[in-house]
């Protein structure tokens, strides 16, 4: 099988799963199921799945608005609702879609209104106001799972108890809204599927260590992470990652690289500029640059070093929520990225800062400074946005990218000359 065919299958399957997800949100056969709105960072969809909720992820709506090239329009609607220019563009985009004139009717599907909004406050403080605005608009109950920032490498005992306790308190709320009794056995079964998908996901991430890397952990990784985000705790996710691993093996056997010839290996940090994703991707492709590792695809599931498993369902859920990547402290992130750079033998680091999202971009300049000056790893800092294309200046970003690679290329040539001499 040709490498190109292998790539198409994984991409196509991911797209089909996304389409099915949106179709089922509005399908008549599921209309008796209640709707919960949940956020992705530290999101524990498995828990709500056991109450037969249809799960809506407002950030994913914003991502698909950007990919469908309607985010500017949605942001305008969001701004007309009174949200200022500096406000998170995911929020404006989602509120523009849900509260603005489209009233949830998107080109990618009809988003049902919530019966319950659960704000898993994890890494992003804006979630709270975003969720409250949605709950206010649709006049439904709102619950908060307050997940404290990791003060140490792992959640302390009290942090763990605090998060677990809040999830337990949600049980009667979910029972009342959904009309379904809590079933601990079902939760355990669902979490076993999560664990299985996670182990395949972790296996996938390891492929980036190969030379050439058979996949791009950023430009392809964001496609591969979709089932992990929206199909958590299902056999669909497990089957998808089994297929993906199989395809990685085939790519590996064919010495396939997503850029043709791998010339530069990178670690990417930060969320992608969704509205201009393809243009952004091309800027790196033309240099033969591959993101062999990235932090963004760990947002839905940082996964490594979890203390608990599905045999202790509530502990496992609390662990999954608290150990989400955006909930890590700055030092943990820096150490992690430095280890990625070492283990995946990269030539440089690219940090994409998001104009309208300070919670995830804060510290990136310090990170850049540390890597570029103290750790001696060439680091490129770029600045645009996750949803608003007005913040993406092609010429400025292209110039920075080209300068970065030309400098890397020169340094490599010089090192080769010295070695030869």
């Amino acid at each position, binding site marked *: 099988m040709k490498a190109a065919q292998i790539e198409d299958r994984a991409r196509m399957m991911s797209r089909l799963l996304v389409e099915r997800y949106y179709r089922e949100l509005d399908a008549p056969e599921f209309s008796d199921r209640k709707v919960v709105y949940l956020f992705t960072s530290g999101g524990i969809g498995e828990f709500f799945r056991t109450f037969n909720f249809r799960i809506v992820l407002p950030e994913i709506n914003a991502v698909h608005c950007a990919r469908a090239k309607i985010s500017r329009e949605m942001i305008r609607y969001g701004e007309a609702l009174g949200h200022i220019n500096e406000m998170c563009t995911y929020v404006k985009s989602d509120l523009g879609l849900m509260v603005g004139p489209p009233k949830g009717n998107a080109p990618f599907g009809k988003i049902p209104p919530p019966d319950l909004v659960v704000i898993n406050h994890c890494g992003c403080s804006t979630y709270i106001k975003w969720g409250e605005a949605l709950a206010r608009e649709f006049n439904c109950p709102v619950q908060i799972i307050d997940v404290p920032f990791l003060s140490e490498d792992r959640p302390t005992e009290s942090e763990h108890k605090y998060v677990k306790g809040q999830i337990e308190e949600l049980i009667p709320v979910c029972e009342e809204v959904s009309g379904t009794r809590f079933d601990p056995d079902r939760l355990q079964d669902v979490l076993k599927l999560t664990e299985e998908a996670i182990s395949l996901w972790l296996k996938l991430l390891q492929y980036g260590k190969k030379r050439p890397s058979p996949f791009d952990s950023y430009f392809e990784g964001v496609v591969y992470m979709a089932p992990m985000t929206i199909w958590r705790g299902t056999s669909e996710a497990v089957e998808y990652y089994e297929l993906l691993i199989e395809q990685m093996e085939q790519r590996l056997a064919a010495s396939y690289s997503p850029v043709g010839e791998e010339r530069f290996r990178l670690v990417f940090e930060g969320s992608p500029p969704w509205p201009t994703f393809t243009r952004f991707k091309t800027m790196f492709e033309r240099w033969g640059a591959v993101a062999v590792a990235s932090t963004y695809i760990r947002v839905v599931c940082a996964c490594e070093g979890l203390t608990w498993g599905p045999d202790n369902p509530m502990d496992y859920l609390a662990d999954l929520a608290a150990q989400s990547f955006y909930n890590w402290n700055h030092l943990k992130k820096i150490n992690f990225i430095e280890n990625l750079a070492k283990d995946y033998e990269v030539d440089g680091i690219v940090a994409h800062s998001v104009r309208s999202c300070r919670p995830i971009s804060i510290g990136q*300049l310090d990170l*850049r*400074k540390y890597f*570029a*000056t103290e750790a001696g790893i*060439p*680091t490129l*800092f770029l*600045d645009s946005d996750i949803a608003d294309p007005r*913040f993406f*200046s092609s010429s*400025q970003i292209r*110039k*920075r990218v*080209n*300068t*970065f690679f*030309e*400098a890397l290329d*020169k*340094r490599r040539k*010089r090192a080769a000359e010295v070695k030869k001499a």
Partner: protein
Amino acid sequence: MLACGIDIGSAQTKCVIMDGNAILQGRGIVHTGANQQRAARHALKAALREAGVEEYDLSITLSTGYGRHSIPFSQKSETVTICHARGSIYRYPETRTVLDAGGQEMTAIRVDAEGNVLDFAMNDKCTAGTGRFLESIADLLNMSMKDFRGIKYHETDPLFVSNACSVFAEQEVINYLEGGKEVEDILGGVFEGIAERGASLLRRVGLEDEITFTGGVSHISGVSSALELVLEHKVNSGIDGVYVGALGAALLALDQSKHR
């Protein structure tokens, strides 16, 4: 053997001709305008005239800057940051940190002893701190860039002018004028604002001795004086700062011709 470096900036196009021993033979500068190819041709002509040679005498031409890919008579191209790094080492061999303030961009560069780029940081979306920003202030004050060069920063009593946004800075200048403030003091504030922005970028890549200031803005001594004051450090700058990118391009062209 003659090598030519041409730097097509957003405001000005600079051309430099060097011999095989990296000795400067001629240079030319023109406004870029809308037609980059024509500007490049005119700058080349001026440099050829000064060097007393003909175009067919050139062994290699390397272009840099915004229009670097559109110049039909150049055989090679490099990004302007790489050229400024190399040119700075040529002008001031002990340079380890460079601030290039051009027409539309401000870039801080950390370099090694051979002029290789170790790290760089560029200004974000706003043009405050660039040549374009100074031109807009000059228009507002009915002055020219030449007039700016005559302003001695140390003789002014700088007024605070925001450096976060060029539009806000213009509004502040208008308010000061309405308030009857001295033009020199307003300009002292403008220079200081640019210097603060440059210093912030330099700190981002890490300050290392010596620091060299290049690009068109470096010609305004008031800005380099303000930069020295803000950094509390000596800064290399001279009247040929605008040519540093083209100098680097010519040096890189020489390197490449040796490898051919």
